[in-house]
């Protein structure tokens, strides 16, 4: 089984929100439901300033805090090591939303269920890249298999680290900062 992962180069992200909207369309979400959100930070003092903006989404943690809190096992680790939600078993209690330290889950009021990034497995299964990776204007995102890293993904892997190792959740989404 592959171990899918994503690397986000925060130095290349320009905060254009293309990935967020592509993801909403791919997953048929409304305007207020996002699976990708942004954090930014300004540093320094005028005129010597810095700025960084980066997307956050489900980090597909190996020790995912959202899984043990789920009373119906809707939140689960799948065979690829990804953190997935089985919508049919989700009863919308939102314990997982509260448990996620990355604030990466959204509650779909229309359907009464929680949703999070599923790495576009339906696209991946068809040989394509996840929607956010495919549309990234500055190519700040890389998708690949940790067990068989190839191409740009393999090159970037050495530099990539978890965003918040202090959370102790062992994410599969890695960042270059």
């Amino acid at each position: 089984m592959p171990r899918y992962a994503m690397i986000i180069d925060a130095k290349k992200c320009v905060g254009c929100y293309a990935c967020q909207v592509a993801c909403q369309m791919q997953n048929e979400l409304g305007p207020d439901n996002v699976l990708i959100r942004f954090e930014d930070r300004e540093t320094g003092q005028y005129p010597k300033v810095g700025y960084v903006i980066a997307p956050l989404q489900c980090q597909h943690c190996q020790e995912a805090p959202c899984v043990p809190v789920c009373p119906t096992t809707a939140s689960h680790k799948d065979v690829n090591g990804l953190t997935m939600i089985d919508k049919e078993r989700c009863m919308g209690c939102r314990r997982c939303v509260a448990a996620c330290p990355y604030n990466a889950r959204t509650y779909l009021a229309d359907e009464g269920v929680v949703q999070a990034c599923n790495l576009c497995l339906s696209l991946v299964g068809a040989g394509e890249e996840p929607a956010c990776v495919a549309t990234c204007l500055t190519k700040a995102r890389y998708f690949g298999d940790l067990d068989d890293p190839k191409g740009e993904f393999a090159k970037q892997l050495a530099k990539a680290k978890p965003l918040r190792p202090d959370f102790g959740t062992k994410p599969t989404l890695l960042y270059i900062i």
Partner: protein
Amino acid sequence: MWAPKFPRRTFLKATAVTAAAVGAGDILSFGDWLRKADAAPVTKIPSLCETCSAACGMWVHVKNGRIWKVTGQKDHSQSRGQLCARGHAGIAMAYHKDRITHPMKRIGDNDFVPISWDQAYSEIAAKLQTVLKEHGPEKVFFSHNPRPTNSFYWPRLMAAVGSATIQSHHSICSTARDVAYKWTTGGMATADLGKTKYIVFLGRNYVEGLSPSSAAGMAAAYAKGTTIIVVDPRHSNACLFASEWVPIRPGTDLALLLAVANILITENLYDKEFVAEWCVGFDEFKKGMAAYTPEWASAVTDIPADTIRAIARGLGNNRPASCIEQGYKAPNGCNYANGTQMFRMVACVNALLGNYGQDGGMKFGNAPRLGSLDAKQYPAPPKPKAARCDGVGIKGEYPLCQASQGIVHMMPQRALEGKAKAGFLYRINVARNAPDPALLVKGYKALDLFVVCDVKWSESAMCAHYILPECSPAEREDLPAVVGAAVTMRTAAIDIVHSETKPLPEIVAGLAAHLGLEKYFAFSREDVAAAMVKPLGVTLDDLRAKGTVKVKAPAAKPLSFATQSKKIELYCQAFADNGFPPVPVWEPPYSAAAGKDSFVLIHGKQGFLSHTTSISDPYLCAIAKRYGLERLWINAAKAKKLGIRDGDLVEVASPQAKRRVRVKVTERIHPDAAYIPAGYGRFAPFLKTGVGYGISANDFVPARVEPISGHAMMMEVVVTVRKAGE
């Protein structure tokens, strides 16, 4: 696509019941239905994005008869397989609640009634004929955002009517740039970002005023170590790819360029051979630049003199693979009184670098040429002899402004003066996107006849006597266009959503028929399209299948400049002949008066918005609201002095307007500038999204016309900012 459909679960439940009634064998669990609906066949149809002028090639994925999503076309040089947030969201315009669904007639303020197409055509034709009879075609104008289909149809109708006043959006966009380059280098050359070693961006923001290719190009150039200098009062997101951010006092880029020229000449860093071969007026130019020392420019621009020297030397030492990027609306395409001379200086500094036609310098495009309709078979209307009602090309008015652009924002004022009587607007929202909306609304309403053709309600449509509703981009096939070395065409992805909307060719031909001018439209859109692509060996079926089809790029042309002298005019004779300084001289912007407690109000794009149409998109508006992106930026140290804290509600005031907005206190802006993002502050009451959210810089700026190129000087305004009571 989310827009107005059932919430998915409700929709599926309803479908399940219907199916259950059809046959017992069809009863499925909800999960099965979900999988079945998700697995519905998807067709991919080529289209072009219409949310900005990049017009990216896209595939529209249609599922269950509705648009599901879009992806970028790989062969389209603007999108190259990617799309921005506007592109992903904008295609759902087809389903928006803001659509104009019928021809409308205004019967009072903000009061419209739907009418039939026949009534609309007949009444418009009758009123136009009255204007033509009483005032002549010189008092009729047409304003649009030029795109392939409307650029063919509307001007043809206007010519048939006898009007020469065709205007694009450029006087509120890039007229200063385009006029300056026309008279200096004979047209615009663009920076060869991929091969340059040292490039200076003046305000231009490739990652927020973006196309996918511009953002990708800047990221790639930075990654490979190109020196990228971004000069901007604001530390925009483009600075993420800048070697250095050089903050500048608003409206003083001209002073920087004058000093750069001074240094290139005095330090002998310029390309003497190129100047001797390709430029006219170097001696006068040299004399003109003598006074503009880096110390002088430092006092004007607030950039240290050593930084100015470093920029000039960086350019000079890396020539010819160095350049000043060509600019757009930023920094000065329509923003400050000195805009035209500023862009003349961009061309002149690039000439001193001898970078024209060189790798890493400035290059002229050489696009494949489309064909046109056989004029013998389908005679075109004669070229109108009437004078233009915006003064373009007329000595003593705006002799140097380009007839292809005109002065669009001036028409409401001309209407109030009785110099314009009938106007047609196609997909351009001047009433919100130009300065002084109160005057614009009053002026448009003062016309005898004002017709707006658009897809959605807008501030300009609210002024119209008649509104003609066009179908949205996803619902129509358009005329082809060239992009890079390829031909591309929008094709219809879905059926017409609102039955009383029409594609533009039908609308124009219908109007022409009621004016007795049908002889000029005796062909179909397909006839025109086929004639356009024929010389390039492409068929319409190719385009319908592939969206974008590569064609052979024309052979490179030897370097030439299409000016009066056939050289780069460092000294411009046409400027001298019309009483303008033939060698650029320093002119302070009107807004130089910004002081300790006031600000020049600057504006610029955010990457997920284009003009005001985007903020009325539910997805894009939700982004702005989630992150408070409508806020006014002011410098942290100055905010402290004014007692303003981050997130405070402030009152922004100019002599013309007072508006309230929340503030973003930041280190990322020059103390003299206050930045408001462009595209907010909508006030058309019929819009469902984005109305009354954020503010527009246009509210504060007086309606004016810059004398050389005729632009709107949209940043020539000083505002005060003070904490407002909640």
